[in-house]
């Protein structure tokens, strides 16, 4: 009798923990995207402590999100503190677009990040821009989450 009850409890505990973990994964997926903009941190690297290196875009868009502007203000502050550092902004697109248009789109994304850095006092001659279009994804999957990680502008130290 008792052993049976313990057994039931164990089963129950397993079931609950399984459900919880399933919830957690589901929540993790959702929390990594807002609309179709990537908001996770899996691929993000840091230029300095607390200074993320990249911003993400919606499909076919080059408009900066609130989170992107926040990241770029941190980059601008870091660049002001380190006046000897120059950067390259690498603009990228996801794989769901024609190659030539995506080259132009990557360039437009990197420039929208550059413009924002400039409004925060960074001189344009410290910031250069290159577009890779869809040629250099970080995530090689063919799914909405992978594509959201690939629609990005990455700030890279040039010197």
């Amino acid at each position: 009798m008792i052993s049976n009850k313990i057994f039931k409890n164990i089963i129950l505990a397993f079931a609950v923990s399984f459900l919880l973990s399933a919830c957690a994964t589901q929540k993790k997926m959702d929390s990594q995207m807002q609309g179709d903009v990537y908001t996770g941190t899996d691929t993000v690297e840091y230029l300095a402590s607390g200074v993320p290196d990249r911003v993400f875009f919606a499909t076919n868009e080059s408009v900066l999100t609130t989170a992107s502007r926040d990241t770029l203000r941190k980059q601008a502050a870091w660049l002001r503190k380190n006046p000897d550092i120059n950067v390259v902004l690498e603009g990228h697109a996801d794989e769901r677009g024609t190659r030539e248009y995506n080259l132009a789109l990557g360039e437009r994304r990197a420039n929208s990040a550059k413009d924002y850095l400039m409004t925060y006092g960074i001189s344009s001659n410290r910031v250069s821009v290159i577009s890779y279009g869809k040629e250099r994804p970080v995530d090689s999957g063919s799914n909405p989450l992978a594509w959201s990680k690939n629609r990005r502008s990455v700030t890279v130290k040039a010197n």
Partner: protein
Amino acid sequence: MIRKIFIKLFFVLLLITESSAIIEVDITRGNLNPLPVAVSPLFSDENTDQNLKSNYEIIKLGEKISKVVENNLKSTGLFNPIAKKAFLQKPDVAHLKPRFEDWALIKSQALITGQIKLENEKLRVEFRLWDVLAGKEILALAFTTVPKNWRRVGHIISDKIYERLTGEKGYFDTRIIYVAEQGPKTKRIKKLAIMDQDGFNTKYLTLGNELVLTPRFNPTNQMVTYLSYFKNLPRVYLLDIETGIQEVVGDFPGMTFAPRFSPDGKKIIMSFAKDGNSEIFTMELETRLVERITNHPSIDTSPSYSPDGKYITFNSDRSGFQQIYTMKSDGTNVKRISFGKGLYGTPVWSPRGDLIAFTKLHKGKFYIGVMRTDGKGERLLTENYYQEAPSWSPNGRVLIFYRETKSDDKGEGFSAKLWSIDLTGYNERQISTETDGSDPSWSSLLTN
């Protein structure tokens, strides 16, 4: 009728005889009943066979050439070559005087026969096309070349037969330039590659040290313009295929991309991206004169000239989304021509001038399609998970493009391959390449 034609390079055409057409192949519709043809091996004498074997290490050349012809004709979907084991008559006898009842018996309607002969290190090729039902010769041709050009011999024969039977120029003696791809998607290695239209004789023109994209031939097929990330500066380059000499096109303070030649070969038209705005420019190769064609704060790219050079079709998102436009070659009279649902890209003007081929993205699917130059009569030829960048065969009857497969979450299962489809929407086929491939561009006919 006898005409004399001189062809540059290695080919000297000796004789053409033609009489009125009896067999005809209609290429304007999808052909569900391909014409049965018999391609008899080209006959050669013992001397020629010996000589080819000992001096050129080529055996059974007549059979090899006939195989090239057979494959070409079959690839069109318009012809159905009959298996050689069904043939009742020997190649040498058939070439002199076919016993038409024997060829009719195996249901052949057209018969191709020929002979090759090695004379003073030159290969003399002669072939004939016979109308089996009418019992007469309808085309005969002879030319000489060097033995190592034997695959081109097959292509030239194929072109002449195609032209005789369909009434339109062939597209077999042509090459494809494309981007050969290898490695994982995140670190893909890309090289310029060139091959015969049927996938043979692949040569790599770059080593893969830098990213290269979108190669396109000039009208004489001696030069290629393409995008290279040499020294991590994406710029349009010009490459001389024979000499291997490369140079940057123009002196632009930013990325140049999406290049193509003008139909006279004197200019390169391309996009130049600066400050988030891509505009279309031309550069005259001789004078280096640069001219700005578009002026709009949106993305303007993928320009392609009409064959008379008077118009340009291009891709712009000035309406908010990617659409296809046309304008005069000086940039005036800009008109949007794509109005269907979805996004449109990569417009490319047909060599016949009447159609524009494009890529369309709608509801997560990619289509290759054509529309008239005023945007009317849109016709989608093929739907897939991902495909883009059509390029026309020189006769405007076939489109080559590339297609990518979906990766799983680990990035496995990805491939990029070259495909072709007829303007009719029929005869969709994969073109075999040594590695994965993308961005194909079709040359014009190498001999006219």
